[in-house]
């Protein structure tokens, strides 16, 4: 309706005395419509936004409510002890924590160089047509359900690890780390690739113009310029790795032993996530074991939170110095 009125006006010959007041009236009318729409959209978004936050808070509160009793019911030395035998009321979470840490760190140690190198290849080296094919393929990898990967790990990777290493079993921390590395690669590659892509072309020119070779420009100018983005990529990959459950549970053997000996990497291990997933189904609600599993959840949450915090602080620090352009 508003639009029709406007068209009518434009067809009329322009006379200054008329145009002024009419255009003012139009401006007001439009403003009011606009305002109502704006009001609705704004509030709808606000409600949605707050409910999302609300759910997160509720989940967090639930986690606290169910998990915090752990710290009163089980003595701390036992809780952070070395033996996890719930049937004998021994709830030492240390093997689980160290198990998660070991698998995650090894996974990142594998995925980091591979991921960054692949990102550099896709962004800086591969010809355009190859990049167009590679990018969506890598992003598709991220969508493979982890249970499928776990199955793949059990039937293919684990026997391979066993035969190659001559170990008694292929279900080891290393097998889990391999799978996790594979799972976090797509995230690392695509986030790092975006970070490299965001480096202005002029950085490359600047590097080349000062007599750097193409490789020197990539490694010493472009990659450092994308540093904060690449760190984010690693943190996201790490977050994915430490929180992953299914694949890890299927291939790590799930023995709650302390991974402190030199060969631990090639022995079975048990992670926090696998423990929760495996045992939650069989515990009586309200029992000590039940609360401890939530307690493990809290520990996991705190670890993940710290990783994210570290990532954020790196990025903020970089921003404050004006390093992101």
């Amino acid at each position, binding site marked *: 309706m508003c639009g029709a009125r406007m068209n009518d006006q434009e067809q009329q010959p322009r006379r200054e005395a008329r145009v002024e007041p009419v255009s003012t009236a139009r401006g007001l009318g439009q403003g009011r419509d606009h305002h109502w729409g704006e009001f609705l959209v704004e509030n709808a978004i606000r409600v949605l936004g707050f409910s999302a936050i609300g759910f997160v808070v509720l989940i967090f509160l639930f986690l606290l409510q169910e998990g915090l009793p752990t710290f009163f019911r089980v003595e701390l030395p036992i809780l952070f002890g070395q033996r996890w035998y719930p049937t004998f009321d021994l709830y030492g979470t240390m093997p689980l924590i160290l198990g998660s840490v070991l698998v995650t760190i090894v996974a990142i140690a594998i995925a980091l160089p591979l991921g960054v190198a692949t990102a550099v290849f896709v962004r800086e080296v591969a010809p355009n047509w190859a990049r167009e094919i590679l990018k969506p393929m890598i992003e598709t990898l991220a969508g493979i359900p982890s249970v499928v990967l776990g199955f793949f790990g059990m039937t293919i990777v684990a026997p391979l690890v066993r035969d190659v290493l001559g170990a008694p079993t292929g279900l080891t921390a290393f097998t889990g780390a391999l799978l996790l590395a594979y799972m976090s690669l797509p995230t690392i590659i695509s986030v790092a690739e975006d970070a490299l892509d965001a480096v*202005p072309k*002029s*950085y*490359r*020119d*600047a*590097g*080349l*113009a*000062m*007599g*750097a*070779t*193409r490789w*020197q420009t990539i490694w*010493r*100018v472009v990659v*450092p*310029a994308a*540093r904060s983005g690449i760190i984010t990529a690693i943190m996201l990959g790490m977050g994915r790795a430490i929180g992953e459950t299914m694949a890890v549970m299927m291939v790590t053997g799930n023995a709650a032993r302390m991974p402190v000996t030199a060969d631990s990497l090639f022995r079975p291990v048990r992670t926090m996530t696998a423990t929760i997933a495996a045992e939650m189904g069989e515990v009586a609600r309200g029992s000590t074991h039940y609360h401890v599993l939530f307690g493990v959840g809290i520990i996991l949450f705190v670890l993940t939170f710290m990783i994210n915090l570290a990532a954020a602080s790196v990025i903020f620090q970089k921003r404050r*110095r*004006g*390093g992101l*352009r």
Partner: protein
Amino acid sequence: MVEQPKIHLEHVGFTYNATSATTGAEPVEALKDVTLSIPPHAITVIFGPSGGGKTTLLRLINRLNDMLSGTRRTGQVLLDGQDIYAHDVSVVELRRRVGMVFSLPLPIPGTVRHNVTYGLQLAGMRDQTVLDNALVRSLQQAALWDEVKDRLDDPATALSGGQQQRLCIARSLALEPDVLLLDEPTSGLDPISTAKVEHSLMELKKHYTIVIVPHSVQQGARVADYAAFFLMGELMEAGPGRQVFINPKNKRTEDYITGRFG
């Protein structure tokens, strides 16, 4: 000109998207049959309306366009009489002899010191005293030393825009190039920083051959020993700065200088 030109362009043509079959982009003929001599130890001003091919020309002189695919180049670019596009020329060596400063000041990630000495380190220089001397010399030449001598280990991005631009000039000077190419080096700067940069150019031309795309006609007129006017990829007029800016031979040059178009 009695002296041998530092740079000589012989019938140079350059087309972007020349092989557009794959991308479908229209070919752009950025330079058309340009023949131009650039004398040593002087400031040559390349000016003209936007899209005239000035940046393209500068990037041709230190082969920054090599990386682009689908371009076509014709003619010859001679540096000291030597064809820089000949097969036996090392691009890296060439770029060390021909420095370039871009219109956006773009320090590489790292400290002020790192920015200046990095090019030398890439060239294999490890001797710390040599690096330190080069650091002081090039910062002084770029008229930046006094402002940053206590901040050498601060991140380069903490400097002001004008300081960053002079830092980029210092970065090029550290390599002791023969030629310094500057593409609108003062486009983002305030008048005082601009004056400082212009002033240091006047000093630098004693030792270097300078080619500059000015960010205004006035700036061109202020610094030019020689000037060349480009319009839509064609060289319309070239000659001593005074003559081109005060008494142009070509009608189009005159129109542009007096502000009748562009």
